[in-house]
């Protein structure tokens, strides 16, 4: 999925996260994560984000995540929402969700 514009999803409320997605440099996927629980769950958060972006076939872009202790399901949902918005809201392929 191609990132064609800047988009945001989520909030900075507790148990949520804010995801910002923007077009990046060619052939680069940059992911920046800030989290209140990075020490305990940093690897898990990164793994969920990588997996979610992989399922959406996102290979280029600049992804910034500010996590406020969200569950895996919220991380997955917010990343997908931000990417879909940044890709111009194409019809959802539910098999990739």
């Amino acid at each position, binding site marked *: 999925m191609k990132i064609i514009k800047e988009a945001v*999803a*989520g*909030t900075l*409320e*507790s*148990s*949520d*996260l804010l995801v910002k997605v923007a077009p990046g440099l060619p052939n680069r996927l940059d992911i920046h994560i800030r989290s209140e629980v990075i020490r305990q769950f940093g690897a898990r958060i990164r793994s969920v984000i990588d997996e979610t972006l992989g399922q959406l076939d996102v290979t280029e872009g600049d992804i910034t995540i500010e996590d406020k202790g*969200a*569950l*895996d*399901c*919220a991380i*997955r*949902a*917010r990343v*997908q*929402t931000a990417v*879909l*918005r940044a890709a111009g*809201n194409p019809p*959802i392929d*539910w098999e990739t*969700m």
Partner: protein
Amino acid sequence: MKLRRSMLFMPGANAGMLSTAFVFKPDSIMFDLEDAVTLREKDAARILVFHALQHPLYRDIETVVRINPLDTPFGLDDLQAAVRGGAHIVRLPKTDTADDVRQLVAEIERIEHTCGRAVGSTQVMAAIESASGVVNAVAIATASPRMMGIALAGFDYVMDMQTERGDGTELFYARCAVLHAARVAKIDAFDVVYPDVNDDVGFLKEVDLIRRLGFNGKSLINPRQIELLHNAYAPTEEDVDHARRVVAAADKAARDGLGVIALNGKMIDAPIVNHARRVIASAQASGVRR
């Protein structure tokens, strides 16, 4: 016996609430994609609910998704999220006719086939929010074997009737019509939300009324109302004692081969015995009223 006293609304776009709602232990939790979600967050809520439904936190609780009406740009996408996410029940708002239910069921069946979910495993409930819906309640309640319940939604209904919420008189006919439709169809009936979350006295007065009318339960907008509601629906110690005596007398009569049952000189017939068994089951499930 599946109790459905409390059906708690949770705004579908709120990740914090979706992460904690299960701790309140309502009988059913309803993820709302309709009125509680702004137009710009419809997409986010749909995806969030899709994933929340699959989280182990919600494995042991009945899940309901209130979708947007199918004639809006959001309804069919909401339905994809609900059915594919594994919701037990889809709640259709603004149900005016049996055809509304049949259209919903056809779309659900199509999605079940596509995603590999067992066909028929998604149940549906209809929310009645207009005079047309009330008048067509029996046809709506009996429109599909997937129907598990019918709910009255007070706000839109009183608007349609050109009145306003008051002491309950304005809802009396609709409550009775919806309830009778549910009983004809052998499905559950749910009453309106009580909007003033700080008025426990008014809430309990309304709960007492709808419990005596025969409603299975109520839609709720605040977790604080769950315990009040469950306690009000629990049978009293006296009710349970009486029910045990009725069942014991019925069992003894069956053992003795007697067709006529009597307790303390009063005749007891089958409906009374069935009611007594329900009281005992209810006490086992929810305890005794405090």
